[in-house]
């Protein structure tokens, strides 16, 4: 399933397709962009490049260090919290 995030200002929905591409939906229109924010196709021809860079790389690492406190972690892994709690 695509990872979808709402832009906090415009309300446009950014959907990471899992291959680096991001589909942006604004007011019923859609556009496709690469992970660097470059337009590829569709009716939406401009979007927030930094939002695209975030959503388009969703599969690379987890999104938030603050999530660490809510995750089950084996005891032997607890001291380092590796990859789970680095501050963004």
């Amino acid at each position, binding site marked *: 399933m695509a990872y979808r995030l709402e*832009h906090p200002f415009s309300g446009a929905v950014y959907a990471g397709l899992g291959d680096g591409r991001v589909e942006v939906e604004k007011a019923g229109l859609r556009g496709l962009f690469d992970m660097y924010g470059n337009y590829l196709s569709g009716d939406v021809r401009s979007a927030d490049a930094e939002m695209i*860079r975030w959503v388009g790389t969703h599969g690379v690492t987890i999104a938030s260090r603050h999530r660490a406190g809510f995750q089950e972690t084996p005891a032997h892994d607890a001291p*380092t919290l590796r990859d789970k709690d680095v501050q963004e």
Partner: protein
Amino acid sequence: MTTLDPRRTDRSPGPSYQDLLDSDTHDVPGFLREEGRSDFGTADVPAHFYWDRDIARLEVERIWKKTWQMACREERLLEVGDTEVYDIAGLSVLLVRSAPDIIRAFYNACLHRGRMLRHEGGPTRELQCQFHGFCWSLDGSLKRVPARWDFPHVDDNAFRLPELLVDTWGGFVFVSFDRDVIPLRDYLGKLTQLDHWDLEGRYTEAHVQKVLPCNWKVAQEAFMESFHVVTTHPQLLRGIGDANSQYDAWGWMSRAITPRGTPSPHLNYEPSEQQIFDTMMGLGLDDAPIATLPDDVRARTVIAEATRERMTSVLGERASRLSDSEAVDTFFYTAFPNFHPWGSYNRTCYRFRPNGTDPETSIMEVLVLSPFQGERPAPAPVRRLALDDSFLEATELGPLARVFFQDEYNVGFVQRGLRTLAEHKPGVTFGAYQETKIRHFYSLYRELLGV
């Protein structure tokens, strides 16, 4: 909760960091209540500072040769014979654990023909030049001269390796080319408040070094304020009080504190506590909820409590005393000129350097400094990323890899834009408050350079 005096026009609307401390569920360390200087004028900073080779040469003479610099983590020099190399602006320093309780820093050049004695760290029994074999003991005394008969003019005492000043703090090794520099602890000043979070008792879980297409000052300035979050990291805005950050400076150091679990005042609506929580969890629209917050519960408080519980496994009982702020907020410090350790258990530490003598590229380093229990883990090897590599490759940085992927989108274009800017405007215009740390930097920089 109180909010900032609405009549005060030189600060953002919304709750200040100090307002948030008033509602903390735990005792707050006193130094977080302190406020330092934040008035460093409003003068522009000349754009040519970022590319001018004469300025870069001045920086070598009046900054790099005059100030304390973080050279490495002490954990890389644990055993006698361990070495590390610190290169700065065309100069090279060789750090050596020469005795169980002595770290020395030598000018990293053979006194025969000038070859670097070492080009990277690692263990050794002696310091031998790989060219002709001149050799020094770990304490810097001349040990061996090949074809000694050919060097009757070499006096052993005069051929001792010249040394720099060395001191340590917080598990870091500092060096100074200037032997008359003020004592390290006086230089660090209030930066030593980081002792509260025991940086010495950390190990380097990750260490990434990347060449950036910009001057070293452009690079570090991108990490000295939260002003850029509104545009560069929009995914955070429902859970970060970016414009409500507090900025302070004292002596040679500065500090920024950015509150989390509180919305950005840039938003024109008030997110629910559930939205704030989901944002801080990094949840997408279709992700299963991690927790459902009751109406009267604050996301900030819930996350702080979970973080305290989580940290107990590594901090023990100390974790239960962490304030909400320490558990949730972001603390980023700077010691002039280029050392940026973060506070609490955010674990991040930056260092920025010129890339050799090139004023238009630089080296950014990120260290993840983690607490541990039991035997000290070995420090992570350095991952070196070239100019064309992306931080995305450094997945050991966790979410930071993607955050830096957003940041790296800017810095090269800043460098390229500065020359165009200077065609009609001689300098860059920093904010009066949100870019306090940068203005503080330039107050020291311009005084040292005399420009």
